């Protein structure tokens, strides 16, 4: 029995179906009423017939691995990012059904654009009562600062998203529109990429519209959004930051379009123009694809407490000096209160009947609407028109009634749509789950074009629990993908690296944390060997060496457990333990996330293997797993260094290398400072051997000194030897080269001067004098290492101040403490 046959059989036996027997009848996306496959699936019957539960299990596992390797996440407000989930079974739409839907979606975008232009322009819809004024005026998305006579934007809507659901007859209904800063296109791209890899045969046989030409069209539409006739307009994607809910989506879009992903602090307004801070100069920005809600976009005229926006951006928009896509006022359309009035608006503005019906909605600001809602509270969902936080979920009918009556204009009642169902993989079989589909529509040339594809969500109790890819099938193979034969492919597109200060900051820390993680992992590996060998033999040479090394570990990471194995585990697993390898890896991931648009996907594959090693260690109590996982984590970190080796040699890359070698210098001096003391010849030799291994220099040492381990030789190799890539001297050389390559460097900047001093100090030392003994200690060595550490830390601060300080944050007039208020 195959997967879909089982699924169909399940549908015919209501008792076995997962749908509640008294639930609403649903349209099934795959199986028709007669139990046979629906049209689009019929075409794939042969391939599908061979897919069984084992295949699905394998495919589902591969999907998870791909999504993990690519670091695909989503978060809900106030929650940690979670893995993006993709169901293996796509939603299929054949060419004939798509055509109908396509016309409806294009018309809807045309209408929404016209509504937007009217609401921010002549307001004929309001003046003539076609849309009741309070539905718009009470909505927090109505942005009065761009509703001025001086502002005209004939195409305020460039990219919109519409959520659709099907009723029991299979007819599509609009559930809502996303016009402010629609998300999901990046997830849809990733879904397609993954699904086409894990089910290549199905993907090939389906003969579906590829998505690439749509991206080319989006890129071209954004470039053409620039006002005036610019030969080479600068487009950026404005993100609220790496902690925003759909950051992955934002970075994916930026990467795919080849536009830099920036944050508010990367931009500034001068004389009504929006400029991007780059290391050498301020560069004009012509088009901003906005992923930041309008409210937060401008601390000057909108939310004054916003640290995410750009002060003055609204003024630049009003003067037509920058195009923000979608316009700052577009959020007013994310308003279910408009739905009942769209048919009349369509007649008024387009002279056409509205094609796509919306979910049945009643606005409570209208007396008839209010009556209807209040007398059908048991059947309707009541919510606010702008999602403002008056949660009515679970409230009693009486409470809902009173809340609505207090401000009726703020509420709608909506009849829930049954939604269609489709098979979704449940781990053992495919079960019927409700789905909704997000579609995307783009203004391209003179018309709106829906994406032939989309992002479906599997719903469980109103919440989205997984996504599905949407495949729109071609009528014939020769048909152009997306019906866009004429779009120029993005041949010469390379992501313009936005080496804004914030990016340099992240790259610097990426370099530092990668090095820190690497060095700590090597140390854990070395110490774990000592633990395994000597933990039961205290007071032996080995036992004392273990004590010395473990003590060094504790000085670096703080001690958390008495048991050595437990402590090493925690160094690998506890992200909250400052100084631990886990902490360094988590910080590395944060820094990587901040520059996601600049990094190859391989970087996430490397981090994916680190995560898998973490997961294995979490599930195992065996001591040997500590070494096993630490080894795999180390391999992942080294793979990441390999990925950065293929990066373009821009300022970001150079500052990453600077970060890495600064950290390497710090780590080696820390390690030497904590270990090279006098405890007897045998112990010292054992400890020095461990240090050499932790510093990845034992092979070199053996070659140079055979097995004769003594302090002077080790210190020479780790501090002075310019040929040893692990030595302090080597790192200082690297620092000099890569600092010099940074745009702000002149040869005499503070970081360069500090480095020169340090190099001079190092070249002036005499190793034989350093190892001189004073009691049980080596006072000269200690003093020297302390001095190096202080200088390296000072250098790190100076690098930050020169190369990526972003200056003060915006503050409102009067936000500074006022010393006294004087009325003259």
């Amino acid at each position, binding site marked *: 029995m195959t997967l879909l046959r089982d699924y169909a059989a399940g549908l015919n036996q209501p008792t076995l179906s997962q749908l509640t027997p008294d639930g609403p009848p649903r349209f099934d996306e795959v199986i028709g009423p007669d139990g046979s496959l629906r049209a689009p699936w019929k075409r794939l019957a042969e391939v599908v017939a061979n897919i069984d539960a084992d295949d699905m299990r394998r495919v589902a596992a591969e999907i998870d691995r791909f999504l993990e390797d690519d670091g695909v996440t989503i978060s809900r407000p106030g929650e940690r990012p979670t893995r993006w989930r993709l169901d293996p079974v796509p939603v299929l739409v054949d060419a004939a059904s798509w055509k109908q839907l396509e016309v409806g979606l294009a018309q809807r975008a045309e209408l929404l654009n016209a509504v937007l232009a009217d609401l921010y322009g002549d307001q004929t819809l309001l003046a003539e*009562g076609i849309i009741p004024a*309070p539905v718009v005026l009470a909505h927090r998305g109505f942005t009065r600062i761009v509703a001025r006579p001086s502002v005209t934007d004939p195409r305020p809507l460039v990219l919109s998203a519409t959520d659709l659901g099907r009723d029991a007859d299979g007819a599509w209904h609009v559930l809502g529109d996303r016009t402010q800063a629609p998300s999901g296109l990046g997830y849809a791209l990733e879904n397609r990429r993954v699904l086409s890899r894990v089910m290549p045969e199905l993907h090939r046989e389906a003969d579906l519209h590829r998505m690439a030409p749509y991206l080319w069209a989006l890129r071209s539409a954004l470039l053409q959004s620039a006002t005036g006739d610019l030969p080479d307009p600068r487009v950026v994607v404005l993100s609220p930051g790496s902690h925003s809910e759909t950051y992955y989506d934002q970075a994916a879009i930026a990467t795919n379009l080849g536009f830099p992903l920036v944050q508010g602090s990367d931009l500034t307004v001068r004389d009504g123009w929006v400029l991007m801070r780059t290391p050498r100069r301020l560069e004009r920005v012509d088009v901003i694809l906005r992923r930041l809600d309008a409210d937060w976009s401008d601390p000057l005229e909108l939310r004054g407490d916003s640290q995410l926006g750009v002060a*003055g951006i609204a003024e630049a928009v009003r003067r037509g000096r920058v195009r923000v896509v979608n316009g700052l006022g577009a959020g007013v359309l994310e308003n279910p209160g408009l739905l009942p009035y769209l048919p009349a608006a369509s007649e008024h503005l387009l002279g056409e009947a509205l094609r796509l019906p919306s979910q049945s909605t009643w606005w409570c600001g209208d007396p008839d609407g209010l009556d209807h809602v209040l007398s059908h509270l048991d059947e309707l969902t009541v919510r606010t028109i702008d999602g403002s936080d008056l949660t009515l979920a679970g409230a009693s009918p009486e409470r809902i009634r009173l809340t609505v009556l207090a401000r009726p204009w703020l509420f709608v009642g909506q009849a829930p749509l049954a939604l269609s169902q489709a098979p979704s993989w449940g781990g053992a079989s495919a079960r019927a789950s409700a789905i909704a589909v997000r579609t995307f529509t783009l203004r391209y040339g003179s018309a709106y074009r829906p994406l032939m594809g989309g992002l479906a969500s599997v719903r469980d109790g109103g919440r989205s629990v997984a996504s599905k890819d949407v495949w729109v099938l071609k009528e014939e193979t020769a048909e152009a993908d997306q019906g866009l034969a004429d779009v120029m492919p993005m041949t010469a597109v390379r992501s313009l690296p936005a080496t804004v200060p914030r990016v340099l900051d992240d790259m610097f820390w990426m370099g530092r944390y990668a090095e820190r993680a690497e060095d700590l992992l090597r140390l854990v590996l070395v110490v774990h060997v000592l633990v395994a060998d000597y933990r039961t033999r205290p007071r032996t040479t080995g036992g004392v060496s273990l004590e010395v090394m473990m003590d060094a570990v504790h000085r670096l990471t703080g001690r958390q457990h008495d048991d050595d194995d437990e402590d090493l585990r925690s160094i690998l697993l506890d992200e909250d333990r400052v100084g631990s390898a886990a902490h360094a890896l988590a910080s590395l991931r944060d820094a990587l996330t901040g520059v996601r648009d600049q990094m190859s996907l391989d970087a996430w594959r490397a981090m994916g293997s680190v995560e898998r090693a973490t997961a294995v260690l979490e599930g195992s109590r065996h001591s040997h797993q500590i070494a096993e996982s630490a080894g795999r984590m180390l391999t992942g970190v080294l793979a990441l260094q390999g990925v950065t080796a293929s990066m373009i040699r821009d300022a970001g890359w150079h500052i990453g290398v600077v970060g890495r070698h600064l950290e390497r210098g710090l780590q080696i001096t820390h390690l030497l400072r904590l270990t090279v003391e006098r405890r007897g010849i045998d112990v010292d030799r054992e400890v020095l051997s461990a240090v050499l291994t932790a510093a990845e220099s034992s092979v070199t040492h053996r070659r140079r000194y055979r097995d004769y381990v003594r302090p002077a030789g080790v210190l020479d190799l780790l501090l002075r030897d310019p040929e040893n890539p692990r030595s302090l001297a080597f790192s200082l050389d690297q620092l000099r080269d890569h600092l010099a390559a940074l745009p702000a460097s002149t040869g005499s900047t503070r970081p360069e001067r500090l480095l020169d001093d340090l190099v001079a100090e190092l070249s002036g030392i005499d190793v034989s004098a350093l190892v001189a003994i004073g009691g049980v200690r080596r006072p000269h060595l200690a003093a020297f290492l302390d001095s190096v550490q202080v200088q390296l830390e000072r250098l790190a601060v100076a690098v930050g101040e020169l190369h990526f300080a972003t200056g003060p944050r915006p*503050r409102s007039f009067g936000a500074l*403490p006022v*010393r006294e208020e004087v009325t003259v």
Partner: protein
Amino acid sequence: MTETASTRYRVEHRTTYTYDDDVTDSLGVGHLLPRSLPWQQVGSYDVTVTPAPSDVNSDTDYYGNSVLYFQVTSPHTELLVVGGGDVTVSVPVVDEAALARPWEELRPLVRRDLPGAWQAADFALPSAGVPLHVGVRDYAAASLVPGRPIGEAVTDLMHRIHAEFDYDATATTVTSTVAEILAKRAGVCQDFAHLTLAALRSHGLAARYVSGYLATEPPPGKERVVGADASHAWVQVWLGGDDWLALDPTNDQWQNERYVTLAWGRDYGDVPPLKGVIFTEATTSTLAVSVDVAPVPS
């Protein structure tokens, strides 16, 4: 109607911010130019910013107010903004017939058929600075009794607020809420305006916030003291069509020829005389404001 007396004023409104360190970038938005109105003629009038801004732009906002945008990019420790010029004011003429209509007939959210109701609706809805408040609604109910002519009803409300609330600059701050004002029974002109707006809107009437100046008269026998005047705020209530009744709960009177109207909006947040954003390492600032509204002998 008969010709009403008019007065010509010379206005100067100075705002000075002083910082303890350089401000390297300062962006500002000001509502400092008076509106041209049937009862108010604006002569030569302008706003100057010191240090000289690198960018200045004048515009008309959504409510028809003059609004000024500026950016100062030369480092400074003092920012001076002066709005000033000539303005001639008479007493606004109010339609007696409109004042006599029962107040319930003038609720734009209910009477969407009335001319101008769709625009007035903007001022009948709660706003960020004037949220709905049950206590305020109850307070206003004593004035807004069924069937009462609107002019009489809102004037009664004004009398009561003036009588029952203390003018006390220490009672509230620029961010005080309507609930706090009601609880303390005290505030300044901006608070009384917001309270009156909340009271009227909670009963469905449309009312807007007016920002401007009031020329104060010197006490008998004393010289006019320059700078004794200040920024002022009062309200306007919708009477249908384009008719509004302007009244000042702080001084218990309808607007007369001593009121200079700068701008109006839903609340203070729409029309602050001056707001802005600075980029600086400074840690403290000093604010000094002076307003002078001097009659010009004709």
